[in-house]
């Protein structure tokens, strides 16, 4: 397992690097950049002072340099105008749109995105695991049918519609203010107990909204896998030998059925992040989604690049955790795969 862990880490690092290269290239692909677009407008209006300032900024941020050099300086492995000052040094770059360092613009958004998506993941697993096991063990019972029905509703309901309904219910029955991830008085305040409680209260609806479709899908998968395992001969044999149902279930079938469940950790994270961007717009959540959309539209390259890199890193780490869990759970050769003997 140590060897696997080491090999997997070694795969993860170049993956992150390649993603960062692709991210940077994609951001640079549209013709021009944020400053050149601004300059075109200023030339049209004849504002000489502003044009000179933009030319200065172009030079200052190295936008006149080759793309490779810009990338290396952005990452912090090549000295820019201010020496080594890139992501590895904690400098995410400059947001041209907000005229502030990206770190300040982003503020708590990345952290809140992380907390929201991590909580959603916990919600998905905490809800889908017991329900998935129950519906498989009690196949065709009333509970199975009821859960299956709710699952289909969860899969079929658009997130934004569910968001609006739950926001209304939360406001009407629990007095939770609509939109945002905290009450207005806590915005831009340091973390306090009151702010923490407010964040928890406001997080309930987004977590349910973002997590519902994932939960429904996960329940279906776990149920199908477990049912498949429970039909196998070794289960019948073990039952005939007098093994209790609980012990039998926990020993092998559940463990085998968990494989796709665990493998989904890596896929779940990017799905939730892309899904949460739309929900964040609908619910006015101060997460990374809406700001990323805006940054991409305005070609605010360092802001967009930092967001994309962060999301990619989350995905890669999610895949890493998923692969490790899968390797520990079921280190079996797959159909069609060949071991290097």
């Amino acid at each position, binding site marked *: 397992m140590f060897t696997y862990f080491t090999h997997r880490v*070694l795969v993860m690092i170049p993956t992150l690097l390649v993603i960062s290269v692709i991210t940077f290239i994609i951001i640079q692909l549209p013709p021009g950049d944020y400053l050149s677009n601004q300059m075109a407008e200023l030339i049209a209006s004849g504002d000489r002072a502003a044009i000179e300032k933009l030319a200065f900024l172009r030079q200052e941020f190295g936008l006149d340099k080759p793309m490779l050099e810009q990338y290396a300086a952005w990452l912090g492995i090549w000295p820019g105008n201010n020496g080594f000052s890139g992501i590895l040094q904690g400098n995410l770059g400059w947001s041209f749109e907000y005229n502030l360092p990206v770190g300040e613009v982003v503020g708590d958004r990345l952290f809140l995105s992380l907390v929201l998506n991590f909580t959603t993941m916990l919600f998905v697993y905490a809800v889908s695991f017991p329900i998935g096991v129950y519906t498989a063990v009690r196949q065709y019972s009333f509970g199975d049918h009821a859960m299956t029905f709710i699952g289909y509703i969860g899969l079929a309901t658009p997130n934004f519609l569910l968001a609006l309904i739950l926001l209304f219910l939360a406001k009407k029955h629990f007095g939770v203010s609509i939109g945002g991830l905290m009450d207005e008085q806590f915005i831009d305040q340091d973390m306090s107990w009151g702010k923490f409680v407010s964040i928890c209260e406001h997080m309930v609806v987004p977590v349910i909204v973002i997590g519902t479709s994932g939960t429904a899908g996960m329940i279906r998968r776990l149920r199908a896998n477990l049912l498949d395992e429970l039909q196998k001969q070794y289960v019948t044999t073990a039952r005939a030998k007098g093994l209790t149902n609980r012990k039998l279930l926990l020993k092998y079938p559940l463990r085998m059925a968990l494989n796709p469940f665990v493998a989904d950790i890596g896929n779940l994270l990017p799905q939730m992040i892309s899904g949460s961007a739309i929900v964040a717009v609908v619910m006015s959540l101060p997460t990374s989604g809406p700001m990323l959309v805006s940054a991409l539209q305005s070609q605010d390259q360092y802001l967009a690049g930092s967001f994309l890199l962060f999301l990619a890193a989350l995905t890669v780490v999610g895949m890493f955790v998923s692969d490790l869990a899968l390797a520990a759970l079921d280190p079996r050769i797959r159909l069609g795969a060949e*071991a290097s003997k």
Partner: protein
Amino acid sequence: MNIYRYPVKALIFDYIRSGLGVLVPIALMLFTDLLPVVFYILAGLVLLFGIYGVRTALRQATLLSVDGNGVRQEGPLGGLLNREIRWADLRDFRLRYYSTRRDGKGGWMQLVLRATDGSEGHGSNGPIRLDSNLPGFDDIVRQVYEMARDHGLANDPASAANLTAMGLGSDDPAVQPTVSSPAPPNDAALPS
């Protein structure tokens, strides 16, 4: 008695991995100013790949002998890595398959042998682990499998599937708990 050892050729990629994993982070740590958290992450990588390199070197210096009595591992460090497992004491063997590719190809196998507690006292305190880049790995697995079968040892589903992939145990119900088969001949083959 058959003697096995990892040749340098089989370990060369492990040395390259270790070298890259140590040198690249060290270069970044030396030549660039880093955020403290990034520095600690890179230091962790240096440690991880350093251990990996030492482990690879130890494996290169380790000898493995297999005969009718059991498996013996003789390593450097004054016998610290010496292990001996007699066939009669073999309690558990697991055949694992690992691959870093999404399609599961290009991976490697690992054989883990464990003895009963008493046997592990023979100059050893732990299991014997062998990777599939050891020349003769297939022969060792076959021998271990036959000994385990003779002693009525059961496999977990992952090991059973991997044995089948190696052309072993496909007709043996005791190592095929996940396929349709007659009832296993003894309790040891049952999930319990």
